[in-house]
């Protein structure tokens, strides 16, 4: 069974997920998808010794592929909790100045982000670089993780115990000032607000959180957000962001990669289920 694009596409796609969520041949496919960034990442138990000076040692190893290195502020932990009010506090003993290093390819479309408790690999759509597809980004993540693991092991800095895995897809949907309040052309289940006494909203934002069963160790969640955005000097756009985050079954990279595969399948199915047939036609859906 394949994911359909007809009026009952939601139902048929759900059945596909039940059949085999990871079978690439059964995933919805688009010839011209609106994805502008993919980020596959893991968080691991903090390694205080993985300081900027140490991380910079990776520069020589990665210089050919990632010749540009930039400093960025570190990202805070994002850990899925069983209850929304639960606390996550991370203690790091060591020097106060932590940072996140960006290792960028020459065209800046490939990026590896490393900090004392995170590794993330990004593909970014810049200057019309075509989307290399999930397996290519996954392969880069696997290689980068191996490099960092070897680096950490060689220096006896501690084990890379993965605690959270995250797969992010950011889709850019071009719009205009008026379109920022009209999501009905994009989201299948969004209704026009034409009956509102103030008319159409200037902007609209939709956020959803789904519990994801049978992936990793609960809780695992899918976050979906459709929100207006605008970069300086550029036209307004709508960003449709889909993120799956949670703990892998075990703390090793094989388990993390399996988590990413499952997360990717859920993200692709959700994207197809949530967006309209008209947009599918625009993005040239082929399956």
């Amino acid at each position: 069974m394949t994911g359909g694009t007809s009026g009952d596409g939601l139902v048929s796609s759900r059945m596909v997920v039940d059949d085999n969520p990871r079978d690439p041949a059964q995933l919805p496919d688009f010839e011209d998808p609106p994805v502008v960034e993919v980020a596959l990442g893991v968080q691991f138990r903090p390694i205080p010794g993985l300081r900027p000076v140490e991380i910079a040692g990776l520069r020589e190893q990665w210089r050919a592929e990632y010749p540009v290195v930039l400093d960025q502020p570190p990202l805070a932990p994002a850990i899925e909790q069983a209850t929304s009010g639960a606390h996550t506090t991370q203690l790091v003993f060591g020097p106060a100045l932590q940072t996140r290093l960006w290792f960028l390819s020459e065209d800046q479309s490939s990026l590896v982000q490393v900090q004392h408790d995170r590794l993330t690999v990004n593909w970014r759509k810049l200057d019309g670089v075509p989307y290399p597809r999930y397996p290519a980004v996954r392969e880069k993540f696997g290689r980068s993780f191996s490099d960092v693991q070897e680096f950490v092991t060689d220096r006896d800095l501690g084990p890379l115990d993965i605690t959270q895995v995250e797969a992010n897809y950011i889709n850019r949907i071009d719009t205009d000032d008026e379109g920022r309040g009209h999501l009905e052309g994009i989201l299948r289940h969004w209704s026009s607000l034409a009956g509102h006494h103030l008319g159409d909203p200037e902007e609209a934002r939709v956020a959803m959180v789904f519990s994801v069963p049978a992936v990793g160790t609960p809780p695992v969640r899918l976050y979906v957000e459709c929100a207006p955005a605008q970069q300086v000097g550029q036209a307004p756009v709508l960003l449709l962001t889909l993120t799956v985050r949670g703990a892998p079954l075990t703390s090793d990279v094989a388990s993390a990669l399996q988590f990413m595969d499952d997360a990717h399948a859920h993200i692709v199915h959700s994207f197809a289920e949530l967006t309209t047939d008209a947009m599918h036609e625009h993005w040239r859906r082929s399956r």
Partner: protein
Amino acid sequence: MTQLLDRPIATGATLYPQAGRDRVERQDAEDFYLQPGPSAPKRQIFIQLSAAQGNLRWLADHVQNEVNAMLALGDGWDGHRAKPITEEAVGSTIGLVFALCDDLSLPPQFFPLPDGGVQIEWHVGGEAMEVEIDRSGDAHGLATDRAGAVIFDSSLEPTAIETLLPVQTIVRRLSIRAASGR
């Protein structure tokens, strides 16, 4: 709804990064200014909160400052044979504070103990809640009422919520009394 929107979504995204991430703190700049150049390794902590815990930043800053002041104490800090505060004691202390306090709580007072442990205390109107964390991180709570009678006396386990519930109740009551001036 607020919690849903406040949750971090694509944390590793870069082209359209989400706002509201923790940034390098002012304290970091002060540390750099006060301790330029090579120096002995300094023990200090910094507490990272998940993005959904923005309302507890004030508590994290307070705890961080108090704990870092204690971590700066070396051997014999009491003029005798006191030991430096252990990382185990610090870990348990912070776990307990965040388990016992919420965004409306009265923060505790912090005291180093000669064995390398930490004591945290709340005192309001003659009533007291004291938690002693020894150098290995084991904790014990003792509460007394205004007459000095013991109303709680038990071991505490930072990750076992059932052992902490009575102490949470006492801390909440003391916080309300402190806020109302009674």
